[in-house]
């Protein structure tokens, strides 16, 4: 008779993920049992508390690095600790904006413009499921880079994605637009999941195992040259590249970024990138490293196209959220440079870049939530003209974030760009570096154009000004700004912290 041993789960290492997950479940219970008028208040205490507790647990786990947990399906190593820490910090920052403005639909199930919706508005309702959804998504993101077999990876991918599809459709204003974007995101996401699982099946067929270490051994044994393996690599890559928004799998990015409620866009842009890139790095660095000659040229090409395409197309955008979406595509290209670099510097610089970019992105989208007229947010760039005169502080901070995206020295973006390009150069990919700096030059053009618009163009009648930022948004925007400058001027301790921890367990 077969003896079943109870699987050991190493709860300590898994605790941060579990805390967030349980927090999300409690959030659902809050939705079920707390009366509507109190829900928002309860969530506003519960959600940050959960994130903070999880963050403390991540910090406590810092010293017990490199544990495999849950019978080898999860690995908690240095990069995961950093990724989870970044994710929690970014989520806390995103939460400041999420809690602040009424960005979410009063009742998502009501038809846009229907009587039902009007009643919901009159009753002062606002969908509060957003908070448990966000926690579910965060728990998936925290698991994604830690996954150590294909099934866990896929489950984590779905756990992080499904809530995002929903959240994208919950915008309070322009609801049809938001729902359209959510549907697009969902359909394309479903396709990419299908590709991913298809590729995973091939990898399993090739290696005879779903765990990363055994796939790795199989890849090394055959020197990576096998059609089934190549098909597996390609389709798994498609799934991952879709999540990071790399060309040619980027098509969802502008629509979803534009349609989703702005605080969600910020959260998505910052946090999803961290999770998806860390998982990508893990797979290419520790699982498929034996097949580097097969995937490196392809990914190099993708990186180059992504950088160039994102920068060039962003020039013609007239909507600030779309512009930031294309800029995020360009940044995905820069981050891919860290992936193809295939060295320790590549991992370190990616970790730094992801955090620095995430903070600046949240700051920028945070400001977008504040630029509004009577109808809600104004994202048409033409109407941002003269913002520098009406709201100098917010315009200056937005300019700061744009300069950080452009990689001007003394901002975090410069240190990030410098480190990631030197990693790529070190990896022998001079072509990526050259295309990278040229795309940065192109990208600078549209960042500067927005600065011109805000500071040097006179306000017209249709111009907007900032609604008075409330305390939470102010804290959010200002702390993002402080981190952006601090990481640009004195990045030493952060870099040292990353260098110590950034070693993948194999």
């Amino acid at each position, binding site marked *: 008779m077969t003896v079943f041993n109870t699987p050991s789960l190493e709860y300590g290492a898994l605790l941060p993920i579990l805390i967030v997950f349980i927090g999300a479940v409690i959030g659902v219970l809050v939705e079920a049992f707390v009366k509507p008028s109190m829900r928002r208040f309860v969530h506003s205490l519960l959600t940050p508390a959960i994130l903070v507790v999880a963050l403390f647990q991540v910090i406590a786990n810092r010293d017990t690095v490199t544990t495999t947990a849950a019978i080898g399906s999860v690995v908690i190593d240095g990069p995961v600790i950093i990724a989870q820490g970044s994710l929690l910090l970014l989520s806390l920052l995103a939460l400041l904006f999420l809690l602040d403005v009424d960005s979410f639909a009063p009742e998502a199930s009501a038809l846009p413009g229907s009587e039902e919706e009007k009643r919901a508005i009159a009753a002062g309702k606002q969908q509060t499921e957003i908070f448990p959804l966000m926690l579910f998504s965060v728990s998936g993101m925290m698991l994604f880079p830690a996954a150590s077999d294909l099934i866990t990876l896929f489950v984590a991918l779905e756990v992080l994605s499904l809530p995002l599809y929903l959240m994208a459709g919950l915008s309070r204003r322009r609801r049809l637009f938001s729902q359209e974007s959510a549907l697009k995101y969902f359909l394309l996401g479903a396709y990419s999941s299908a590709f991913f699982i298809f590729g995973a099946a091939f990898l399993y067929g090739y290696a005879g195992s779903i765990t990363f270490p055994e796939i790795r051994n199989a890849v090394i044994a055959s020197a990576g040259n096998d059609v089934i393996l190549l098909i597996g690599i390609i389709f798994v890559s498609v799934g991952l590249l879709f999540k990071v928004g790399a060309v040619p799998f980027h098509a969802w990015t502008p629509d979803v970024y534009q349609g989703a409620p702005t605080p969600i866009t910020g959260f998505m842009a910052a946090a999803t990138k961290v999770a998806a890139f860390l998982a990508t790095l893990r797979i290419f660095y520790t699982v498929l490293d034996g097949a580097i000659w097969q995937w490196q040229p392809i990914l190099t090409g993708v990186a180059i196209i992504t950088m160039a395409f994102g920068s060039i197309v962003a020039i013609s955008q007239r909507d600030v959220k779309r512009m930031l979406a294309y800029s995020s595509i360009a940044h995905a290209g820069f981050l891919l440079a860290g992936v193809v670099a295939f060295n320790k510097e590549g991992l370190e610089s990616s970790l730094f870049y992801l955090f620095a970019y995430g903070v600046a992105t949240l700051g920028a989208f945070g400001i977008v939530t504040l630029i509004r007229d009577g109808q809600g947010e104004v994202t048409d760039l033409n109407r941002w003209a003269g913002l520098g*005169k009406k709201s100098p502080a917010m315009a200056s901070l937005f300019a700061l974030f744009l*300069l950080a995206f*452009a990689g*001007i*020295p*003394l901002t975090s973006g*410069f*240190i990030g*760009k*410098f*480190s990631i*390009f*030197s990693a790529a*150069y*070190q990896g022998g990919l*001079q072509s990526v*570096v*050259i295309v*990278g*700096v*040229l795309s*940065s*030059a192109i990208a*600078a*053009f549209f960042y*500067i*154009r927005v600065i*011109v618009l805000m*500071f*040097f*163009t006179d306000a017209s009648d249709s111009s907007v000004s900032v609604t008075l930022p409330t305390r939470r948004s102010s804290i959010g925007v200002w702390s993002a700004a402080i981190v952006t400058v601090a990481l640009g001027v004195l*990045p*030493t301790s952060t*870099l*040292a912290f990353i*260098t110590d921890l950034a070693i993948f367990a194999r």
Partner: protein
Amino acid sequence: MSTLTILGILPLIGALIVATLGKSDARRAKLVAFATSIITALYAIVVAIGFQIDRPGFQFVESREWIPAFGITYGVGVDGLSLVMILLAVILVPIVILAGWDEAEGGRWSAKTFYILILILETMMIGVFAATDLFLFYVFFEAMLIPVYFLIGGYGSGERIQAAVKFLLYSLFGGLLMLASMIGLYVMANDQIGKTFDISALSRLEMSSTTEHLLFLGFFIAFAIKAPLWPVHTWLPDAAKSATPGTSVLLLGVLDKVGTFGMIRYCLELFPNASKTFTPFIITLAVISIIYGAFLAIGQKEIKRLIAFTSISHFGFIVMGIFAMTTQGHSGSALYMVNHGFSTAALFLVAGWMIKRRGSSLIADFGGLQRVTPVMAWSFFIAGLSGLALPGLSSFVSEILVLVGTYTRYPVAAVIGGIGIILAALYILIPVQRTLHGPTAPGNENLADLNLREKIAIAPVIALIVLLGFYPKPALDLINPVAETTIAKSGFTDPAPTVGSERR
């Protein structure tokens, strides 16, 4: 904190004080900014007196760890060349503030912001010349663009925004190419000697000639855009025309010198072999700049654009002197950088006053100023004569040194460049004749002459032009040792003088 750090921080403190003032308190902002820049200039002069001419290498050195993860240090120090450039910068700033006392009015933002930007810019100018760490240099090199961008776009005239954007994009493009080269150097340093950005350590790197050529080009293009050299000069006339006269003085007088300074300090020292390979090509570009700038200057109808094109011609001379790879050429170029700074400052400041009084910047709108406003006319005249390198005025010494230094190695280039001197007479004397002499043009009859403040502002510039023309020794003493060591480090020797038939 070392002396240089204190020097760099002084303007920043002034900027902070200005920032605390009330928004409408333009007068006090001006006074604080002016006082700060005077204190900075005096302190710089004190530092300069303490500089030991005979000692080779950098002085007043300070080096602290900044970002050890990349081997980046906060490293500052000066040799003769950088000291001269810093002096040029800190002397010009108070003059600019005094000369353009009401310059900030009519800008998009308050006068307060204007002076904060100027003072931040001063800190960065000191930093860019004092840096001995390539990364630190780059940070100043790029960050400097932001205050200038806002100075042009916010306080200029005409199509100031387009000009500001053009300036920024050109410079950023060059800067990013330089970043790629810098990363290349860093990675090679990491392989060979460990992570560092120290210039002297980097200059000892071994690299293949292809790599060296490519990295050299990254740096050179960035500096050529900054300097600016034909064919990447097109941002300069627009920027100079649109910026306030004071900003133009700092832009052409100091910021553009970062380009030529960078060629000497970085291109030649880090990539001596590549410099040798590209010399004929660069000399050709320099000669084209000389002639092209001169011809276009002759054709200009607008005073500020004219001065900008004369500068392109002069930068051609400076670059030619640098890449002639002789000590005379180098000394001449370095001295030229200083002289050009002062004579352009004089030209721009007086032109600015003329334009402000007349309300037009077209040469055709002026005439007979000699009678109406004698002091202003004479100042313009002397500044112009310095621009055409009249013997006895400062530019003459440097131009001769450059031509002599170039002739020993590239006689053809020197001869063609020499034509630039003749053209200079044309592009200076024609506008001088049209604006200052002849019958008083309509609309010029009631122009006011320079007031006391303006006289005080222009006097030291003209005094320096004359002084350095008759007695350039103090500047040359600082510059010559640097020229000799740079030439030696790049592996060149001065061609032996040949006499008569001995010449091949």
